[in-house]
């Protein structure tokens, strides 16, 4: 079980949260101009990084607010929690390759 530090409610159990996949993916400014490949790339292709991943989470059974989490996908360690719209903090490089 992860203990996720909601920026508004404090540390809470993972069961209260829902996962929102990779953070900081910009929606195309002109979606009508994209072809199917580019649109599929935007919708479905995530980096699925082995190491530190920037993710969105929502405290769905708590305050119902979205926020960003920097999580190591190997160790499950949560390195940072920061609000929506904020730039990710400087994090140490981690390589598992």
């Amino acid at each position: 079980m992860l203990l996720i530090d909601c920026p508004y409610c404090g540390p809470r159990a993972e069961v209260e949260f829902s996962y929102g996949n990779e953070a900081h993916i910009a929606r195309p400014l002109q979606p009508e101009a994209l072809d199917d490949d580019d649109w599929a790339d935007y919708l479905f292709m995530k980096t699925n990084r082995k190491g530190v991943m920037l993710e969105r989470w929502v405290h769905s059974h708590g305050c119902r607010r979205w926020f960003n989490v920097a999580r190591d996908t190997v160790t499950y360690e949560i390195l940072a929690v920061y609000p929506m719209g904020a730039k990710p903090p400087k994090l140490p490089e981690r390589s598992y390759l």
Partner: protein
Amino acid sequence: MPEETLRLSALASLGLAAHAVAARAPEQGIALRELPLPALLNLRLDPKETAAAKAAARTLGLLLPDLGQAGLAKELVAYRLGPDEWWIKMEGPAAALETKLRAALGDSHAAVTEIGEGWAQIEVSGPQARSLLAKGCPLDFHPRAFAIGEVKQSLLSKADAVYRLISDDDDASGALFEITIRRSFADYAWRWLADAAGEYGLAVLS
């Protein structure tokens, strides 16, 4: 809001009145009570907009509470549920306060919505209240982690719930929690609580 006389308790189908008692016996660890249907207002505003926050606070007669806290004023309670969200619970109909709040907030970026119809409240008390809730909720219910006046949103088994600790005595009366639950989940929540309270001894209060 429907006619007061037409409002039906969320737990009417359980027929609780038939086996309700006036007080919990000393050997019973838990007492459950259905609270009257709440009059609730949802207040949304950005506390950084100080003019709106001040206007709301003046109208309510209290300082808007901090995150995770409840604030008490004459005849109402304010619960902070998020960075820009509060609930106001009061006795009696909410329409008058709703009108007053809307007038006070004027054109500011804020919203006041009556939501009482969607929620039901159950009171859980007794020396085993913390142990009972810990069975169905990932929150820490230890007195060190959940103090009087705190409000926390979490789960009760599989239903969303808002917990407020109203009082806590070291003597035999134990802790008294108010649980606010979606009206359509009230039946489920009550049955879950009654079942989980079996090992402690359950009293249903009128």
